[in-house]
């Protein structure tokens, strides 16, 4: 597939994630939208990885060019998992204190 297709797709997903962050007030949904953004990045990385692979595989069929993109995705997943554990812990902590997951509910810190 032409790489542009993937780029467009991933950017679209990424921006949908951003719009979600901007438009929702539920902390969990906001967090999920951030995960969506990460996934868009992941897909784009894999696509790029295959693109770079395709570029160099012609010269050397045994090349592992492009593999770093996929490994990066792996690390992103690791980080995302860690983030989720911490993030959900924080959200639960907040819920325990306020019985709300509305990000605008807590509004003591401003100005």
């Amino acid at each position, binding site marked *: *597939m*032409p*790489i*542009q297709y993937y*780029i*467009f*797709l991933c*950017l*679209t*997903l990424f*921006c*949908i994630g*951003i*719009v*979600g*962050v*901007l*438009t*929702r007030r*539920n902390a*969990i*949904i906001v*967090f*999920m939208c951030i*995960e*969506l953004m990460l*996934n868009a990045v*992941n897909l784009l990385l*894999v*696509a*790029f*990885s*295959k*693109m770079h*692979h*395709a*570029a160099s595989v012609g010269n050397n069929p045994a090349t*592992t060019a*492009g*593999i*770093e993109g*996929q*490994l990066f995705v*792996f*690390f992103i997943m*690791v980080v*995302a*998992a*860690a*983030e*989720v*554990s*911490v993030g*959900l812990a924080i*959200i*639960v*902590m907040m819920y325990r204190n306020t019985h*709300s*997951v*509305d990000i605008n509910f807590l509004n003591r810190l401003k100005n």
Partner: protein
Amino acid sequence: MGTIQILFYFLSALAIFSAIMVLLSRNPVHSVLWLIAVFFAISGHYVLLNAQFLAIVNLIVYAGAIMVLFLFVIMLMNLNAETEPRKHIWMKLAGVVSGGCLLMMLISLVRQAVEMGGKKAMMAEGNIGLIKNLGHALFSDYVVPFEITSVLFLSAMVGAVVIGKK
């Protein structure tokens, strides 16, 4: 149009549609489910790209572990459609517009990026996505970052404990 193209379009449409539905669903549980659908679509893409390892991991880690965690939390809190107050309409509009602007900006950039022209992602071929190759790279060239992620996990673990402790 070959199968791969059809599949690509189908998965793309599915991903985008599901992603939009994540935003639009009033009920958080539905959102989670739609998001899982997105993850599935993306996993499908991975398969198309012959990134088998990631496809599996994505399903297991994301769709499986992470999203289930989300579901648990949501259910634990007993959230439903009514619990989320709605954002002001102007705020929503502003969010959509600015997100849209960013998208248009990025896309126009990519369209002008001539060096991307003609480049293709290798579909269903190439073996770098195989577990064997990935594993080899991970434990040779990438062993340091791999070890370092353990620190990340440790800290996340300690953090979760600190937060969770009474």
